[in-house]
């Protein structure tokens, strides 16, 4: 399967349009897709900061497996948009060396699934370095994550929990175009190694207004109330945010008011915002695409039970993929991922508790 083939026809045309010199639309409306917002942040920051560079497999001439870096090679040249060999472990180690010597590398994993091949370089070297001997490692790894594209076990993974568990890394997972740009700009300017999870399923399916220039920079570590409500809190991040929003719309028709907290950053976690929403609604559902056991949801549930126990009116519910590799057949994949229907079902049970 070529990944080009899963990109719908219209978006292919859109890609070639946006591949022109500047991706910001002529009309300045700045309604961008999630993918365009990421590209815009890369382009903006590389124009602003000559230390910035992008590297990865097929990111240059070809424009990346998802065409996300398209146009950057033409603008910045082969020294700042580097087509690398298939060597993720070396790529991350090299990014660390470049960062030591004053560059600001962004590594693109072709798929988040392949980040495991760079594990030692990330969690043993880069993550521990500042604590051990004080040299900062300012790089960003972009990791195209998640399912919904029928990618099967090795093109659909959500490996964020591994990195949240490793001391010394920052981990972000934006769900909207504005946050995708705003968090990437923060990540690119952060003196620490940041793993930036981006959601393939959102690349071209989600669009929204995206601020320009220095506007709209989203600080790492701050969650956002995506929807205010009183009866139930859904705490989520990444692609399932949009399923949660749809579920909340439906529940609103039944006069149920749902609050949705979009974490945006997974490390550091916005503990205050998590506890605040739990205390406010007293019923909490955590939704993520990654599998259940020791996922980010477990940490959030633990935080709430420890610090907001007396506010709860029901046990905390976690909705996540089961502990299986992401399956391939559509009927299996759909059965494994949290979606609007499952959120609705779980919400109704929780509300009735």
């Amino acid at each position, binding site marked *: 399967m070529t990944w080009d083939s899963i990109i719908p026809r219209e978006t292919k045309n859109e890609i070639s349009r946006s591949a022109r010199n500047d991706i910001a639309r002529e009309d300045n409306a700045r309604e961008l897709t999630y993918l365009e917002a990421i590209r815009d942040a890369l382009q903006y920051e590389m124009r602003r900061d000559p230390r910035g*560079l992008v590297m990865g497999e097929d990111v240059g001439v070809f424009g990346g497996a998802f065409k996300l870096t398209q146009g950057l090679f033409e603008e910045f040249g082969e*020294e*700042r948009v580097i087509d*690398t*060999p298939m*060597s993720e*472990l*070396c*790529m*991350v*180690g*090299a*990014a*660390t*060396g*470049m*960062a*030591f*010597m*004053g*560059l600001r*590398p962004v590594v693109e994993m072709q798929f988040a699934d392949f980040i495991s091949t760079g594990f*030692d*370089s990330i969690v*043993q*070297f880069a993550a*521990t*370095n*500042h*604590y*051990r*001997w*004080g*040299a*900062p490692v*300012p790089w960003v790894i972009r990791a195209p994550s998640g399912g919904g594209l029928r990618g099967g076990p090795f093109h659909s993974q959500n490996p964020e929990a591994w990195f949240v568990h490793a*001391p*010394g890394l*920052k981990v972000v997972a934006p769900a909207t175009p504005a946050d995708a740009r705003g968090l990437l700009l923060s990540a690119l300017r952060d*003196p*620490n190694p940041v793993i930036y999870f981006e959601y393939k399923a959102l690349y071209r399916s989600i669009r929204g207004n995206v601020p320009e220039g220095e506007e709209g920079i989203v600080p790492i570590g701050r969650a956002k109330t995506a929807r205010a409500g009183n009866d139930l809190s859904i705490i989520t991040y990444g692609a399932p945010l949009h399923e949660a929003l749809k579920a909340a719309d439906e529940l609103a028709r039944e006069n149920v008011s749902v609050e949705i907290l979009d974490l945006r950053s997974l490390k550091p976690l916005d503990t205050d915002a998590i506890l605040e929403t739990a205390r406010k609604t007293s019923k909490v559902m955590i939704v993520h695409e990654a599998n259940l056991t020791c996922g980010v949801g477990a940490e959030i549930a633990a935080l709430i039970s420890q610090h907001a126990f007396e506010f709860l009116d029901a046990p905390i519910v976690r909705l996540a993929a089961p502990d299986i590799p992401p399956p391939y057949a559509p009927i299996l994949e759909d059965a494994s991922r949290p979606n609007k229907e499952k959120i609705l079902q779980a919400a109704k049970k929780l509300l009735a508790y």
Partner: protein
Amino acid sequence: MEFSNELLEQAHYWMRLTRAFDDRLDLLFKQGKLVGGLFSQRGHEAISVGAALALGPDDVITPMHRDLGAYFARGMTPARLMSQYMGRATGPSGGRDANLHGCGDLSLGIVGFVSHIPQSTPVAVGMAHAFKLKREPRVALNFFGDGGSSEGLIHEALNWASLYQLPVVFIVENNQYAYSTPTKNQMRMPDIAARAAGYGMSGVVIDGNDFFAVHKTTKEAVERARGGDGPALLECKTMRMRGHAIHDNMSYVPKELLAEWEPRDPLLLFEKRLREMNLLDDVKQNELLTRIEREIDAAQAFAENAPMPDPSKLTEGIFAE
């Protein structure tokens, strides 16, 4: 290549300092004054010092656990290093990392390593990549062992360095063992340097106990790399003269092998040459050894009197601000 008297004097000092410091560490370990384990440097002095002295002040190194001499030659003081071995606040890692691990200081061009061998190798490659992109005439020098050469990352890093023709030189310290594993159980081919051909870079086998050979070859490779001719793989053959670490009595090493290498001690060979060149006599040698003992005494006193790390700062610095 000419070896100036000044260079040879420096090399003599650093190699003797490395040997004496290593002996002192052994003693301090037995007195219970060091924290954790200890890797002997014995047999590696000509490699670590010879290679490090081939660099200019702006070059960088990613040393491994038998490169104490390279730390000294790059300017890390005995007091800081002794502090590191004693887990004191005044060591480069402030008590957070063990012995030569995490013993980095970028102002000296030294990258601290992690235990995970050979995770420093791609970091050296990345630094060299930065030099090339920034058009800086600097070189990165990476060290790894015969055991480390079996890790897959070495392939990735050598390929990457060669692909982009980066100014990086790889020094393999082949001391014939990786913990208890002799090289014959590590690889079929006798020379790791022979792999260089597969990457289109030069590979050279060097007598790692001969300071002159190590220094001269490294210097050539470094200057070629600096001039844009790309990386090189230099394999220094030596023998690990002690156990893998201090707990290890190396019962698995044949006595005859050690006896064969004993007279090839890098310091003895070097000093013999200095005497032949009329650069060394008994008086000078005694002066040097006395001076070094005094310096190590001072480093030890410094470290023993240095503050312990502050447990109230346990979680500080996990992120850079």
